[in-house]
């Protein structure tokens, strides 16, 4: 049995008696959003696919790098300073550009797309002789330095004598108290409730909702999955991809659409905006996710055409868009060749 003596031999333990009226809140919070979060409807486990190198490179290429949007002025309530102008040599400029690349990578790091986590069920011991020692449960956390919050030990002694590992909500709350993550509140903001999210989405505040969800929840939290998938589906239905395109959320959104077989709207959008590189990358991603193959065609036009003839779900619209694109492309080439002939 994990005795009190054994617990005190850990480097540092603090106990935090939680009052009875707060006990109920832990059980309520996990079911704030509707039960559709439990069935993501994916063809594969997203956790397997997301971290693969080829998938990561494809998603990064799709996101692009619009430096103006990524490095936009952020309003954080800080005292503003006037901009500095410096005179640099070419070597110094290269050095600064290299530093900027690192910063860009950090800002564009994609939040992982995972499946929902399983609830924690481990029980260390059951001591019925301790029953009724108090009205409330005691939560213990190991606050030593050098451990990540995912690996931190958080255990709970219930009034019925059970010593168990803390549930995910209890863990998050305790870790937030002692090791606060910036931007995260202890109580879930009301913005993530049903009606309020819809209000934000209707005002096109997609980046705000997703950023806040990243700060508030872990990527395998059922609430996070529900909020993010709702946002991605809304963006897809209303084809408002441009606002999210240069952000860190575009990659996970594209992967979500590919996994849930909704990528045709996005392909349509790329063809209409004549972004053939992005369209080709999207088709390559589809093949990678579907059966781990990378397609052998080198020509991007052929690749896209094969997809539209083959696995596409919205064939009529895509074919129409593709034909009109090909015509415009042909005309452009003719004009170009005429100009070349004229100049020669």
């Amino acid at each position, binding site marked *: 049995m994990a005795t009190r003596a054994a617990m005190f031999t850990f480097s540092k333990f603090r106990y935090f008696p939680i009052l009875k009226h707060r006990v109920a809140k832990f059980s309520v919070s996990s079911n704030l959003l509707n039960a559709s979060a439990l069935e993501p409807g994916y063809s594969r486990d997203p*956790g397997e696919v*997301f*971290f693969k190198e080829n998938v990561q490179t494809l998603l990064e290429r799709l996101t692009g790098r619009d430096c103006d949007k990524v490095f936009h002025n*952020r*309003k*954080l*309530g*800080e*005292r*503003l300073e006037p901009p500095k102008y410096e005179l640099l040599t070419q070597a110094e400029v290269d050095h600064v550009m290299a530093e900027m690349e690192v910063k860009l990578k*950090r*800002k564009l*790091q994609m*939040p*992982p797309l*995972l499946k929902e986590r399983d609830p924690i069920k481990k029980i260390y011991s059951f001591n019925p002789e301790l029953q009724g020692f108090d009205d409330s449960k005691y939560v213990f956390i190991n606050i030593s330095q050098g451990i*990540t919050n*995912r690996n931190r030990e958080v255990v709970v002694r219930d009034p019925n004598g059970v010593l168990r590992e803390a549930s995910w909500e209890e863990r998050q709350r305790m870790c937030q108290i002692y090791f606060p*993550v*910036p*931007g995260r*509140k202890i109580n879930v*903001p*009301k*913005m993530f409730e049903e009606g*309020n*999210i819809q*209000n*934000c989405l209707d005002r096109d*505040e997609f980046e*705000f*909702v997703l*950023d*806040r969800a*990243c*700060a508030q929840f872990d*990527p*395998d939290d059922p609430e996070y999955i529900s909020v993010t998938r709702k946002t991605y589906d809304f963006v897809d239905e209303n084809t408002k991809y441009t606002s999210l395109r240069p952000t860190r959320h575009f990659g996970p959104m594209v992967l979500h659409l590919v996994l849930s077989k909704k990528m045709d709207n996005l392909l349509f959008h790329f063809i209409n905006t004549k972004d053939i590189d992005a369209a080709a990358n999207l088709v390559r991603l589809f093949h990678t996710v579907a059966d781990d193959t990378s397609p052998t065609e080198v020509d991007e036009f052929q690749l896209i055409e094969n997809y539209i003839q083959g696995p596409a779900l919205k064939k009529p619209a895509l074919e129409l868009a593709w034909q009109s694109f090909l015509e415009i492309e042909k005309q452009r080439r003719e004009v170009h060749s005429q100009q070349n002939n004229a100049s020669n």
Partner: protein
Amino acid sequence: MTARFVLSRCFSRLTLKQSVFTVPSKYVNNLPMLLKTEGIQLSFARSFAETTSDEVSTNSNPEELIVDEKNASKMRNRAIPVETSMKYLKSKGYSTTYGGDPVWVRYRRNFKGQFAPRTRKTCIRQEKLATGNPCPICRDEYLILDYRNVELLKQFISPFNGAILPTEKTGLCQTKQRELLVAILKAKDYGLITFDVPIREYDYSDYHKS
């Protein structure tokens, strides 16, 4: 000296036995009381609590209505709903009064010297304005600080760095500044006001055991 009294439009709906127009000044200082007539709340009318015997001979009716427009505008006992305030912000009256500026821009504080002291604790005491130069929110009774009234709240957030403007700039009294802070915090919680969230960085090894 007799105080001047003016009958307001609402009184046309009332049937008065005697309408009083000139009364000795001692009655001006009575405590204000609410009178309800035909469902309309008259916030600006006062009634006599007690009358002295020598005045009774001229006015035998003990519950006469006295209207005092100057002091009527100082009453702040009506609870105005937020929706009314939100409508008011879109109205013509608002735009002519304030132009396109935030409500605090055309307000001027009165103090001696170059540096303003802290703003007063509150402009409203015992349900009426207790000062001659109330702060920008207290002086207009249709400006309600509520988390839903985002248009008004945004006027007090700096467009440059997203911070809430201090009272040195806006001139709000301390109670209204506190109400403003609460309303803005609540609006951000509900997602009605957007702001830049700190970037969350991930360690992929936490989620991907390779």
